[in-house]
Protein backbone atom coordinates (compact mmCIF):
# COMPACT_ATOMS: atom_id res chain seq x y z
CA UNK A 1 0.00 0.00 0.00
CA UNK A 2 1.57 3.25 -1.17
CA UNK A 3 0.95 5.26 1.99
CA UNK A 4 3.00 5.89 5.09
CA UNK A 5 1.73 5.57 8.64
CA UNK A 6 0.63 9.21 8.80
CA UNK A 7 -1.90 8.52 6.02
CA UNK A 8 -3.22 5.28 7.46
CA UNK A 9 -6.16 6.77 9.36
CA UNK A 10 -8.22 7.77 6.27
CA UNK A 11 -7.63 4.29 4.86
CA UNK A 12 -8.95 2.69 8.04
CA UNK A 13 -12.01 4.92 8.00
CA UNK A 14 -12.71 4.14 4.34
CA UNK A 15 -12.33 0.41 4.95
CA UNK A 16 -14.57 0.63 8.00
CA UNK A 17 -17.34 2.13 5.89
CA UNK A 18 -17.32 -1.08 3.85
CA UNK A 19 -17.39 -3.50 6.76
CA UNK A 20 -13.67 -4.01 7.31
CA UNK A 21 -12.42 -3.74 10.86
CA UNK A 22 -8.92 -3.58 12.35
CA UNK A 23 -7.80 -6.79 14.01
CA UNK A 24 -5.89 -4.86 16.66
CA UNK A 25 -5.73 -1.33 18.02
CA UNK A 26 -3.72 0.55 17.12
CA UNK A 27 -3.83 -1.18 13.72
CA UNK A 28 -0.24 -0.54 12.64
CA UNK A 29 2.26 -3.14 13.82
CA UNK A 30 5.97 -2.36 13.59
CA UNK A 31 8.43 -5.08 12.66
CA UNK A 32 12.01 -3.93 12.18
CA UNK A 33 11.90 -1.07 9.69
CA UNK A 34 8.45 -2.00 8.45
CA UNK A 35 4.83 -1.60 9.41
CA UNK A 36 1.71 -3.47 8.53
CA UNK A 37 -1.93 -3.34 9.54
CA UNK A 38 -4.28 -6.28 9.91
CA UNK A 39 -7.96 -6.28 9.08
CA UNK A 40 -10.89 -8.66 9.32
CA UNK A 41 -13.79 -8.86 6.92
CA UNK A 42 -16.79 -11.16 6.92
CA UNK A 43 -17.98 -11.54 3.33
CA UNK A 44 -21.74 -11.33 2.85
CA UNK A 45 -23.45 -14.61 3.69
CA UNK A 46 -20.22 -16.16 4.98
CA UNK A 47 -19.83 -17.43 8.52
CA UNK A 48 -16.16 -16.63 9.10
CA UNK A 49 -13.76 -13.68 8.90
CA UNK A 50 -11.29 -13.23 6.12
CA UNK A 51 -8.02 -11.88 7.43
CA UNK A 52 -5.80 -9.66 5.34
CA UNK A 53 -2.74 -7.51 5.84
CA UNK A 54 -1.82 -4.15 4.38
CA UNK A 55 1.91 -3.54 4.19
CA UNK A 56 2.96 0.09 4.20
CA UNK A 57 5.42 0.63 1.36
CA UNK A 58 8.00 2.80 3.08
CA UNK A 59 11.34 1.36 1.96
CA UNK A 60 13.15 1.44 -1.37
CA UNK A 61 12.30 -2.08 -2.49
CA UNK A 62 8.64 -1.74 -1.56
CA UNK A 63 8.36 1.63 -3.28
CA UNK A 64 10.05 0.21 -6.35
CA UNK A 65 7.60 -2.68 -6.39
CA UNK A 66 4.68 -0.25 -6.17
CA UNK A 67 6.07 1.77 -9.07
CA UNK A 68 6.49 -1.35 -11.20
CA UNK A 69 3.08 -2.82 -10.45
CA UNK A 70 1.08 -4.24 -13.34
CA UNK A 71 -2.54 -3.36 -13.94
CA UNK A 72 -4.53 -6.45 -14.81
CA UNK A 73 -8.03 -7.08 -16.00
CA UNK A 74 -9.49 -10.03 -14.17
CA UNK A 75 -12.52 -11.82 -15.59
CA UNK A 76 -15.50 -11.35 -13.32
CA UNK A 77 -14.25 -8.12 -11.74
CA UNK A 78 -15.65 -4.78 -12.80
CA UNK A 79 -12.36 -2.93 -12.46
CA UNK A 80 -8.71 -3.80 -13.03
CA UNK A 81 -6.46 -4.71 -10.11
CA UNK A 82 -2.79 -3.94 -9.60
CA UNK A 83 -0.49 -6.87 -8.98
CA UNK A 84 3.22 -7.18 -8.33
CA UNK A 85 5.54 -7.43 -11.28
CA UNK A 86 6.91 -10.98 -11.47
CA UNK A 87 10.46 -9.73 -10.76
CA UNK A 88 9.35 -8.15 -7.49
CA UNK A 89 7.24 -11.16 -6.53
CA UNK A 90 10.32 -13.35 -6.95
CA UNK A 91 12.35 -10.99 -4.75
CA UNK A 92 9.73 -11.08 -1.99
CA UNK A 93 9.55 -14.86 -2.24
CA UNK A 94 13.32 -15.11 -1.88
CA UNK A 95 13.21 -12.84 1.16
CA UNK A 96 10.38 -14.78 2.78
CA UNK A 97 12.62 -17.79 2.43
CA UNK A 98 10.43 -20.69 3.52
CA UNK A 99 10.60 -23.88 1.48
CA UNK A 100 7.27 -23.09 -0.19
CA UNK A 101 8.42 -19.56 -1.03
CA UNK A 102 11.67 -20.81 -2.58
CA UNK A 103 9.70 -23.38 -4.58
CA UNK A 104 7.34 -20.64 -5.75
CA UNK A 105 10.30 -18.48 -6.79
CA UNK A 106 11.81 -21.38 -8.75
CA UNK A 107 8.59 -22.01 -10.63
CA UNK A 108 8.07 -18.29 -11.27
CA UNK A 109 11.56 -18.12 -12.75
CA UNK A 110 10.99 -21.16 -14.93
CA UNK A 111 7.57 -20.12 -16.20
CA UNK A 112 8.31 -16.42 -16.74
CA UNK A 113 11.92 -16.51 -17.86
CA UNK A 114 11.37 -14.57 -21.08
CA UNK A 115 9.56 -11.75 -19.29
CA UNK A 116 11.93 -11.31 -16.35
CA UNK A 117 14.16 -8.24 -16.17
CA UNK A 118 17.31 -9.97 -14.99
CA UNK A 119 19.23 -6.69 -14.67
CA UNK A 120 16.66 -5.44 -12.16
CA UNK A 121 16.45 -8.79 -10.40
CA UNK A 122 20.20 -9.21 -10.05
CA UNK A 123 20.69 -5.63 -8.87
CA UNK A 124 18.27 -6.14 -5.98
CA UNK A 125 19.64 -9.59 -5.19
CA UNK A 126 23.06 -7.99 -4.76
CA UNK A 127 21.64 -5.06 -2.76
CA UNK A 128 19.78 -7.39 -0.42
CA UNK A 129 22.60 -9.93 -0.24
CA UNK A 130 20.38 -12.88 -1.09
CA UNK A 131 22.66 -14.40 -3.72
CA UNK A 132 22.85 -17.73 -1.94
CA UNK A 133 19.12 -18.43 -1.88
CA UNK A 134 18.80 -17.12 -5.44
CA UNK A 135 21.52 -19.52 -6.57
CA UNK A 136 19.66 -22.42 -4.98
CA UNK A 137 16.42 -21.39 -6.64
CA UNK A 138 18.08 -20.89 -10.02
CA UNK A 139 19.63 -24.36 -9.92
CA UNK A 140 16.22 -25.86 -9.21
CA UNK A 141 14.51 -23.89 -11.96
CA UNK A 142 17.19 -24.63 -14.55
CA UNK A 143 19.27 -27.59 -13.36
CA UNK A 144 21.57 -27.69 -16.37
CA UNK A 145 22.16 -23.99 -16.91
CA UNK A 146 24.38 -21.37 -15.34
CA UNK A 147 22.85 -18.14 -14.13
CA UNK A 148 22.74 -15.38 -16.74
CA UNK A 149 25.58 -12.87 -16.33
Amino acid sequence: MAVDESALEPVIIALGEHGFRPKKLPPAITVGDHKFAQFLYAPPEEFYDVHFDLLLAETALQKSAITRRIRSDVPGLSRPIDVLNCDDLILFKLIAGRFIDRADAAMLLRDNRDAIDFNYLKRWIAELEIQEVYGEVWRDAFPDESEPA
Partner: protein
Amino acid sequence: MKSQLIPPPELAPPSVMHLPMSKRIALWIDLVNTGEAFLKAGLRRKIGTDGDINAAFREWNSQQMEARELRQIQFLTNLSRCERAGGR
Protein backbone atom coordinates in the same frame (compact mmCIF):
# COMPACT_ATOMS: atom_id res chain seq x y z
CA MET B 1 22.24 -32.25 -6.23
CA LYS B 2 19.37 -31.17 -8.48
CA SER B 3 15.81 -29.95 -8.05
CA GLN B 4 15.06 -30.13 -4.36
CA LEU B 5 12.33 -27.48 -4.49
CA ILE B 6 10.34 -28.29 -7.62
CA PRO B 7 10.29 -31.20 -10.06
CA PRO B 8 12.94 -31.11 -12.77
CA PRO B 9 11.64 -29.78 -16.09
CA GLU B 10 11.17 -33.23 -17.57
CA LEU B 11 8.93 -34.31 -14.66
CA ALA B 12 7.14 -31.01 -14.00
CA PRO B 13 3.37 -30.72 -14.53
CA PRO B 14 2.37 -28.97 -17.75
CA SER B 15 2.67 -25.21 -17.67
CA VAL B 16 -0.48 -23.08 -17.81
CA MET B 17 1.33 -20.05 -19.21
CA HIS B 18 -0.07 -20.59 -22.70
CA LEU B 19 -3.65 -20.37 -21.42
CA PRO B 20 -5.63 -17.11 -21.41
CA MET B 21 -5.93 -15.33 -18.06
CA SER B 22 -9.60 -16.27 -17.70
CA LYS B 23 -8.74 -19.97 -18.01
CA ARG B 24 -5.85 -19.70 -15.54
CA ILE B 25 -8.11 -18.00 -13.01
CA ALA B 26 -10.78 -20.65 -13.54
CA LEU B 27 -8.19 -23.34 -12.82
CA TRP B 28 -7.09 -21.50 -9.68
CA ILE B 29 -10.67 -21.20 -8.43
CA ASP B 30 -11.18 -24.91 -9.07
CA LEU B 31 -8.01 -25.69 -7.12
CA VAL B 32 -9.13 -23.54 -4.18
CA ASN B 33 -12.59 -25.11 -4.16
CA THR B 34 -11.10 -28.59 -4.28
CA GLY B 35 -8.80 -27.74 -1.39
CA GLU B 36 -11.75 -26.44 0.61
CA ALA B 37 -13.67 -29.63 -0.08
CA PHE B 38 -10.74 -31.72 1.19
CA LEU B 39 -10.42 -29.49 4.25
CA LYS B 40 -14.10 -29.76 5.13
CA ALA B 41 -14.04 -33.51 4.60
CA GLY B 42 -11.12 -33.73 7.02
CA LEU B 43 -12.87 -31.55 9.56
CA ARG B 44 -16.05 -33.60 9.24
CA ARG B 45 -14.09 -36.79 9.89
CA LYS B 46 -12.53 -35.15 12.93
CA ILE B 47 -15.75 -33.85 14.53
CA GLY B 48 -18.08 -36.65 13.48
CA THR B 49 -21.41 -36.56 11.70
CA ASP B 50 -23.13 -34.59 14.48
CA GLY B 51 -20.40 -31.95 14.87
CA ASP B 52 -20.79 -28.30 13.89
CA ILE B 53 -18.84 -28.01 10.64
CA ASN B 54 -19.08 -24.20 10.56
CA ALA B 55 -17.67 -23.93 14.08
CA ALA B 56 -14.89 -26.35 13.17
CA PHE B 57 -14.10 -24.28 10.08
CA ARG B 58 -14.03 -21.05 12.11
CA GLU B 59 -11.65 -22.66 14.59
CA TRP B 60 -9.39 -23.84 11.77
CA ASN B 61 -9.54 -20.41 10.14
CA SER B 62 -8.64 -18.72 13.41
CA GLN B 63 -5.57 -20.93 13.79
CA GLN B 64 -4.56 -20.16 10.22
CA MET B 65 -4.88 -16.42 10.87
CA GLU B 66 -2.57 -16.64 13.85
CA ALA B 67 -0.05 -18.62 11.83
CA ARG B 68 -0.35 -16.09 9.05
CA GLU B 69 0.48 -13.25 11.43
CA LEU B 70 3.64 -15.04 12.52
CA ARG B 71 4.62 -15.58 8.87
CA GLN B 72 4.08 -11.91 8.12
CA ILE B 73 6.25 -10.91 11.06
CA GLN B 74 8.95 -13.33 9.95
CA PHE B 75 8.82 -11.99 6.40
CA LEU B 76 9.18 -8.38 7.53
CA THR B 77 11.97 -9.36 9.91
CA ASN B 78 13.79 -10.97 6.97
CA LEU B 79 13.12 -7.94 4.78
CA SER B 80 14.50 -5.55 7.39
CA ARG B 81 17.61 -7.69 7.79
CA CYS B 82 18.21 -7.87 4.03
CA GLU B 83 17.70 -4.14 3.54
CA ARG B 84 20.03 -3.32 6.39
CA ALA B 85 22.62 -5.69 4.93
CA GLY B 86 22.43 -3.67 1.74
CA GLY B 87 22.75 -0.39 3.61
CA ARG B 88 19.22 0.75 2.90
